[in-house]
């Protein structure tokens, strides 16, 4: 059966993509940030997944105001890097995993998550920057990717609790897939940042680090955090952090339901890597790698 072996969490700032694409990673401004991902790139080489489920949000790229899906799963064969206005990033086409994606869609919808199924989508920096951070600049991405898009642009956005429960449902879906696949789930976006108005530039390292602590040790409690706390403490775009709860909810130490509590207790997650840096453009950058025991 397929299995989720690890989760990766990272911010997905567009300027990071630009720094990579323009060869600026060793400049003094950027060098400390990329240093924080060196270990991670080696780890990914040493622990190559068969598929990555990449949770991200679209930034008014694939989804206009005409249709705003709360949750959307990509079941296409491939996804083109989007032109967000600066021209498309010079990165490889993202290959999908249509079969596993369709299986997950089927299973998760039957678990009462009302997904939108997407067969054509250009992917923006929300998806490609995490790939660049973790893989560098390869000719082709090392494995197929299933894009999983979450609406965090127009309110109401899904609650932390809903996201956390969705993660559980995704794990159940993956574990019911017949083929032996090593699956990773990545949660992206955040950490604290605000891109609008007189409060633009807000950064809250106390909040961010407490979020990382709790994401590791007590994600079920973290899932109860209301939206207003994210926006107030981590800036209007800090709300992206709810997406990290999807990836965290898919780890095997999280009980699927009350009946599953003992099984979940038998598992634990190992923190393989943790990194925090301010700033990247307007944003605090957080990064975490967790492995299932």
């Amino acid at each position: 059966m397929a299995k989720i072996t690890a989760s990766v969490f990272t911010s997905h700032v567009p300027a990071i993509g630009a720094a990579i694409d323009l060869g600026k990673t060793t400049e003094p401004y950027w060098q400390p940030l990329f240093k924080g991902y060196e270990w991670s790139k080696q780890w990914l080489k040493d622990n190559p997944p068969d598929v990555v489920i990449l949770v991200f949000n679209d930034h008014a790229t694939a989804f206009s105001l005409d249709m705003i899906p709360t949750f959307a799963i990509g079941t296409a064969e491939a996804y083109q890097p989007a032109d967000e206005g600066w021209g498309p990033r010079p990165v490889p086409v993202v290959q999908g995993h249509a079969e596993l994606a369709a299986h997950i869609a089927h299973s998760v919808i039957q678990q009462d998550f009302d997904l939108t199924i997407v067969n054509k989508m250009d992917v923006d920096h929300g998806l490609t920057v995490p790939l660049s951070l973790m893989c560098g600049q390869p000719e082709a991405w090392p494995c197929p990717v299933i894009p999983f898009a979450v609406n965090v642009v127009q309110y109401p956005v899904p609650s932390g609790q809903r996201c956390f429960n969705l993660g559980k449902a995704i794990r159940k879906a993956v574990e019911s897939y017949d083929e032996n696949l090593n699956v990773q789930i990545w949660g992206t976006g955040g950490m604290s940042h605000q891109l609008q108005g007189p409060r633009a530039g807000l950064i809250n390292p106390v909040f961010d680090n407490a979020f990382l602590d709790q994401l590791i040790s007590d994600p079920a409690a973290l899932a109860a955090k209301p939206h207003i706390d994210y926006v107030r403490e981590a800036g209007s775009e800090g709300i992206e952090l709810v997406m990290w709860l999807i990836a965290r909810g898919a780890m095997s130490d999280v009980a699927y339901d009350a009946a599953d509590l003992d099984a979940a207790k038998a598992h634990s997650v190992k923190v393989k890597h943790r990194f925090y840096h301010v700033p990247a453009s307007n944003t605090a950058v957080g990064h975490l790698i967790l492995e299932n025991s």
Partner: protein
Amino acid sequence: MPGTIIFDAEQSRKGYHLNQFCMSLMKAENRERFKADEMAYLNEWPMTQEQKNAVLARDLNRCMATGGNIYFLAKIGATDGKSFQQMAGSMTGMTEDEYRAMMLAGGRSVEGNRFVGEDGDAQAQHQPQGQSSQKGKR
């Protein structure tokens, strides 16, 4: 919260055409057409005059007040070759250098900026921020 607009269904309705105009700039040929004659391009969209003026002036705060969303508006900045940092900074009244220096120094503090009426630098009584405001005061 001070200096913060929540983009909900009402904002979305108000800003629908403004935001859809922004998305049109994801096509290179539309960016060229817009740059060649901004007013003519804007007139193809059923936006309010206030929205069109805000776009022409690149006044992102005004754009947001009339229903714009920053992820959509970013396409205007991209068309101008601006980074997200330049766009975000432009909404504070700070110069580019000032804003960049603030970010390098750890960003804007949340202290005093959690609730409307506190005394943080994002509160209304401290707008606009940066040199421009200081010049105004002298």
